[in-house]
């Protein structure tokens, strides 16, 4: 069984890689298998996890009857299949969108806005109270100025209701540069880890499957 699994794995691995050359029947076959099997897999996992473990067990074992509301909303969703009353399916949809909007409004506001502003209120010359002026190393001072100033100019870039002209435009331009450095940093940081993914697959083909490298 293991050997069959290994061969199937190798066949599919090469099928996907072949896409780099061009679209071809091998890739199409791998893609078709991927789509069919994974859609089924996800449904089964969700079914047993949500409908059985959370819903059925929740009601029968724990008596959480409020879960029935979820099932009713889910059922209303299926009314789409009945053309005449299909519009009712907008109710669960608006329920979800309302809940997500309400929840994320406060959530993002506190974690993204409040917390980040609080973190940026920091002294430029030293990182602790009680230190006198310029006792911090010059590197720290420059770094702190860049963190506070960079955040400030970055926000200027995002301003919608003012034209990026004059001094405001210059600040906004510095802001986009800071943002570009951020992007560059993330880019550079990720390149290496992506390479290691490929090495992992090569290891599977040449090591596990062909046994050429040990």
């Amino acid at each position, binding site marked *: 069984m293991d050997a069959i699994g290994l061969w199937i794995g190798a066949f599919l691995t090469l099928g*996907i890689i072949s896409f780099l050359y061009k679209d071809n029947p091998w890739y199409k076959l791998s893609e078709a298998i991927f789509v069919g099997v994974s859609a089924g897999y996800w449904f*089964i996992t969700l079914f047993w996890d949500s409908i059985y473990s*959370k819903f059925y067990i929740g009601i029968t074992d724990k008596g959480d009857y409020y879960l029935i509301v979820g099932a009713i909303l*889910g059922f209303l969703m299926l009314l789409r299949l009945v053309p005449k009353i299909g519009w009712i399916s907008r109710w669960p949809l608006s329920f979800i969108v309302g809940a997500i909007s309400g929840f994320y409004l406060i959530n993002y506001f506190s974690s993204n806005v409040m917390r980040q502003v609080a973190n940026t209120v920091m002294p430029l010359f030293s990182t602790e109270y009680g230190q006198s002026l310029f006792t911090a190393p010059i590197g720290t001072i420059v770094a702190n100025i860049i963190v506070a100033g960079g*955040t400030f100019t970055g926000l200027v870039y995002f301003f919608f209701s003012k034209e990026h002209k004059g001094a405001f435009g210059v600040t906004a331009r510095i802001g986009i540069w800071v943002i570009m450095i951020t992007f*560059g940093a993330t*880019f*550079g940081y990720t*390149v290496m880890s992506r390479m290691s993914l490929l090495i992992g697959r090569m290891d599977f083909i040449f090591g596990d499957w062909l046994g050429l490298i040990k």
Partner: protein
Amino acid sequence: MRRQIPLIITFFIGTLLVVSVFIPPMESLKETFTLYFDIIAVFAFFLGGGNLLRVHLTKLSRRKQDWVYSIVTVVGFAVVLVIGLLKLGNPGGITASPTAEGSLFQTLFNSILVPLGSTMYALLAFFVASASYRAFRAKNREATILLIAAFVILLGRTPFGMMLTSWIPESFSILQIPSLAVWIMNSPNLAGQRAIMIGIGLGVVSMSIRIILGIERTYLGEEK
């Protein structure tokens, strides 16, 4: 009426969740709604999965281009559904976890989905290379800045970066690539991240308000 009810639901539920943050007895509302969402999502799958089947069966019956692959998709989908729902080939029988070790369902996952998924993921190595090449021909100042920062960080994560700049005296050690990389990560990178995050936070606040107040309603299919 058809138009109004969804907007009322959105307004009521949205406001309820905003208010619930400040009222301790309503704390569990979020978890309850998450459970509802999970349940609704499974019901919705009957629409999604049904659509998947319909699309491929139509393709098959009309002998559209590449219809052969539709057979594979439909068969794969059906086989997994049967195995997973009836827990066929599961050593623990119908009461065991569907993903129990040694079950046929889990074997399918390990020998089909794992290699497919990880290879698709691994293609990124090639795409990262081609995107880097594209960035390399930097068209403007912004792209050049991105590229330089990326290059410093990349070198900083390899022994090559150290070798390249080890001649720089200790008093200017900040200019050595590894320390420069750390500096970029901790200062300008942090500043950019913060500006982006604060912007996102405000963007979400504004969009959520538009949705809760019913000003934004395209998603409901109610264009004025």
